[in-house]
C-alpha cells in the first residue's frame, strides 16, 4: 500500500506501468502534433472517437470535453484492464493522452462525472509495429515470474484462512499471530496484485487511504481494518467476522486472476523498483502497520519479491550493464544483511516490532533502501537495451 491511498482510478493506472504499456498524459498545449491524433469528443452522454481503427504503436488521443461534467477517459483492454487513463478533464478543456499500444482490440471509455462504467466505444489497433522479437531468456523470465506470482497467491490463501479462522473463532491472540504471515505473499508480489486496481483497495487499504465520502465504518475493509480491531480495540465483533470472510473472498479473486496479469520484462523490473518504493514510502516510516508494527515483515517480503524479479532478469541485465548488476548484488546483500539484524532466526519472519526501532536505525534502513532503489530504477533500461 502506498502511504496515501491513490484514488481507485489512479491505482488502477499502475497497470500502465506494469504492463509496460507506457501510458502517459501531457497537457494539451505541450506537444500538439494534431493530425495523427485520435480525437475523442466527450459530452455528458456521448463519447465520439474520430477513428475506430488506427495503427498500433505510439497512439495519441486528443480529448475534448464538450459536456458540463468533469470527465475521465480510459483506454481499456477487452477484459477491462486499463491501458492508460486520464482523470479530471474539466468541462470545456482539452487533454492529450498518449500510450504505446500493441495491435489488438480495445475500448475507449468516457466517464462523465467520473463514475460508472462509462460510455464505451470499440476501437482496434492494427498492424503497425510488430513487437520486436524478444530475447527468449526474457520470455523465460516472464514465465517464471508468472509462476512465482501464482505460487505466492496459492500459498497465501491457506495462511489467510488461518488468520480469518482465528477471527471467526474470536481468538484475538491467534489472529494477531497469524496476521503478518498472511500478508507475505501479497507483499512479495504487490505490483502485480495492484495491477488489478479493484482488489488492492478492498484488501490492503489503510484508514487514511479512504477516499472523501467513504465511511470507515462501512467502506473500510481488508487486512488493516482487522489489524486495527485486533491491536487497537483488542476485540473481535460480528463485523470483524464478516470482514474476515470478505477478505478470504477478495483474495480468492486475486488468486483466480493473478495468472492473467500482463507481465513483461520491463514491468518486472519496474515492479521490483515499485516494491522498494512501497518500502520507502510506507514501511520505513512505520505507516503501513500502524497498529501491529509488523512493518519489517512486509519490508522483507517486498525486498524478496523485488529480488525474485531481479534474479530472473539478471542474466540479460548483466550482459547489458554489468556494473549495474554488480551494484544491485551489492545493495541487495547489504539490505538483507541489515534486515537480518532485526530477527534472531534467519529463517523466521519474526522481526523486531517496528515501534522498537529507533530513529537512527530507521534512517539506516531508509538509506539502505535508497541505495538499492536508485540503481534498481535503472534495471528496466538494462533489460530493454541490447
Amino acid at each position, binding site marked *: 500500500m502506498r502511504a496515501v491511498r491513490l484514488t481507485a482510478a489512479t491505482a488502477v493506472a499502475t497497470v500502465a506501468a506494469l504492463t*509496460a504499456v*507506457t501510458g502517459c498524459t501531457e497537457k494539451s498545449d505541450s506537444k500538439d502534433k494534431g493530425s495523427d491524433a485520435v480525437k475523442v469528443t466527450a459530452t455528458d452522454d456521448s463519447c465520439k472517437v474520430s477513428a475506430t481503427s488506427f495503427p498500433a504503436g505510439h497512439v495519441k488521443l486528443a480529448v475534448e470535453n464538450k459536456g458540463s461534467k468533469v470527465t475521465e477517459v480510459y483506454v481499456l483492454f477487452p477484459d477491462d484492464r486499463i491501458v492508460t487513463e486520464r482523470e479530471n478533464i474539466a468541462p470545456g478543456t482539452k487533454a492529450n493522452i498518449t500510450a*504505446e499500444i500493441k495491435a489488438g482490440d480495445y475500448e475507449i471509455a468516457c466517464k462523465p462525472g467520473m463514475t460508472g462504467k462509462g460510455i464505451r466505444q470499440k476501437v482496434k489497433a492494427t498492424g503497425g509495429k510488430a513487437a520486436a522479437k524478444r530475447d527468449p531468456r526474457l520470455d523465460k523470465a516472464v514465465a517464471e515470474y508468472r509462476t512465482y506470482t501464482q505460487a505466492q497467491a496459492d500459498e497465501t490463501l491457506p495462511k489467510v484462512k488461518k488468520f480469518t479462522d482465528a477471527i471467526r473463532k474470536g481468538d484475538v491472540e491467534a489472529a494477531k499471530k497469524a496476521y503478518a504471515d498472511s500478508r507475505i505473499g501479497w507483499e512479495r508480489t504487490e505490483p502485480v496484485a495492484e495491477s488489478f486496481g479493484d482488489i488492492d483497495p478492498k484488501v490492503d487499504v489503510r484508514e487514511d487511504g479512504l477516499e472523501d465520502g467513504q465511511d470507515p465504518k462501512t467502506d473500510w475493509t481488508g487486512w488493516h481494518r482487522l489489524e486495527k480491531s485486533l491491536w487497537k480495540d483488542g476485540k473481535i465483533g460480528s463485523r470483524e467476522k464478516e470482514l474476515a470472510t470478505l477478505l478470504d473472498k477478495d483474495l480468492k479473486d486475486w488468486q483466480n486472476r493473478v495468472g492473467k496479469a500482463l507481465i513483461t520484462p*520491463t514491468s518486472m*523490473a*519496474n515492479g521490483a523498483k515499485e516494491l522498494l518504493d512501497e518500502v520507502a514510502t510506507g514501511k520505513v516510516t512505520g505507516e503501513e502497520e500502524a497498529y501491529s508494527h509488523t512493518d519489517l515483515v512486509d519490508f522483507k517480503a517486498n525486498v524478496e519479491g523485488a529480488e525474485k524479479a531481479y534474479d530472473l532478469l539478471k542474466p540479460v541485465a548483466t550482459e547489458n550493464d554489468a556494473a549495474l548488476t554488480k*551494484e544491485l548484488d*551489492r*545493495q541487495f546483500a547489504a539490505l538483507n544483511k541489515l534486515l537480518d539484524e532485526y530477527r534472531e532466526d534467519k529463517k523466521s519472519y519474526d522481526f523486531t516490532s517496528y515501534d522498537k526501532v529507533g*530513529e537512527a536505525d530507521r*534512517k539506516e534502513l531508509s*538509506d539502505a533502501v*535508497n*541505495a*538499492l*532503489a*536508485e*540503481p534498481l*530504477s*535503472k534495471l*528496466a*533500461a538494462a*533489460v*530493454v*537495451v541490447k
Partner: protein
Amino acid sequence: MADTDTDQVKDTGTATPPAPSRRSLLAAGGAGLALGAAAAGGAVALTRSGADDDMQPAAETGGAVPFHGAHQAGIATPVQDRLHFAAFDVKTDDREAFVQLLKDWTEAAALMCEGRTVGDGAYGGLPEAPPDDTGEALGLKPSRLTLTIGFGPSFFDKHGKAFGVADKRPEALVELPKFPGDNLDKARSGGDLCVQACADDPQVAVHAIRNLARIGFGKVAIRWSQLGFGKTSSTTPDAQTPRNLFGFKDGTRNIAGTEKDRLAEHVWVGDSTWMNGGSYLVARRIRMNVETWDRTSLQEQEDVFGRDKREGAPVGKAKEHDQPFLKAMKPDAHVRLAHPDANHGATILRRGYSFTDGTDGLGRLDAGLFFLAYQKDVRKGFIPVQRSLAADALNEYIQHVGSAVFAVPPGVRDKNDWWGRGLFERTEA
C-alpha cells in the same frame, strides 16, 4: 586561468565585483559580527538604492561562475541570494567506489554550474527508465550556482583507515569544543562530507543538491540539510550591507573577494599539503528567538549589538563604516566581543544565510541564521571568537542548535581534476 577569485565571474561583466571603493578600503569596523542577515534580496535593495549604477541585480544576470580555479568557488566569490547546504554520511568503505563518487560528483557539479543537465539529461532517453537529471532546473539560468565540498573530522575518524587517508587528516581539522549555551541537535550536526550550494535561484541550488544526493545513493546519504535565503554577509564591497533577521546590518567589514592579502592571511591555507589553497568551514545553525527580540526596546537592541539600527554606525559614531570605538560599547555588546581587536586579530570570512523552517509547535518562528564562516585555521578563527562571545548580550536571544566543521580542499583545477584528488592521489602520481 583565473588565479584570483575576483576573476571568477564571467558572463556580462555586470556581476564582476567592482573594485573596492575607497570607502570600504578605509573602513575597518565591525568585522567580527557573528550574526548577519540579508537585505531582503540584495538585488532588490540595490535596485531601490539606485546608488550604484555599475551594480546590476545579481539574480538578473543569471551568469555562470567558473567551476574550475585555484580555490573552490563559493568561498570568496560573490555571495548569491540562496543556499542549500547538505551534510552527508559516507556509507561505503570501498575506496574505489568512493573515489568514483567524487569524480562523478565533480563532473555533475561542473555541468550544473554551467547551467547544464546531469548525465543524459532530463528527457529524451529511454521511456522505460528514469532520466539522469531530475529536470526541475531546465530552462533556468546558471544563476551563479557554486558548489563547494568539504570533509568533516568524522570522515577521517570513520573512513580514514579504509580509504588509506588517515595520515592525511589535517591538524587544523579539529572538532569544535563545547561552547557555553550550545544546545546542539545531533540530527543537525556533523557530517562526513558537506556540499554548499549557493545560487541566486533557490530551485537551482535545490536541484544541485538533489542530483548529487541521487548520484550518491549507496555511497553517501544525506545526514541533514539546510535551506537559506537572504545572504547575511557579502564578499563584495557593496554599498548596502545586508541585515540579519534581527534587523541589524551585518558584515560591515567582512573580507571581500577582492582583498587578496586578507584572504591569504585569514582564509586560504598556504602549505605544502593537499589542503594548500583550501580553507576550513564552520557551519552553525543559530536559532533566533525573534518574538522576544521584537519585544525588546530599541535602546536595548542597539546596546546588544553596539551599533545603531538605522545606519549601522558603531556607538558614538555617525556612519556605518566609521571606525568603531569598542570601549564606548557595553562590555557585553556583540560587536565589541566579536571584533578582531578583542580576539588578537582573529578574522573569519562569513557567508551565512537567514533561514526559516516555518514555525515550531509553539507557534514561534523557527528562524535564525545559518552561519557559515571560512578561515585558514578554525583554532585561530571561529574558536577564539566564539569563546569570546560567551559573555555576549545577544546570547539571550539566540541559541546554537546545529554545528559542523569541514576541511574544504582547494579548487578543481581543470577537467582532469576532481574534488579531493589531492587527498586520495598517491604522491607519486
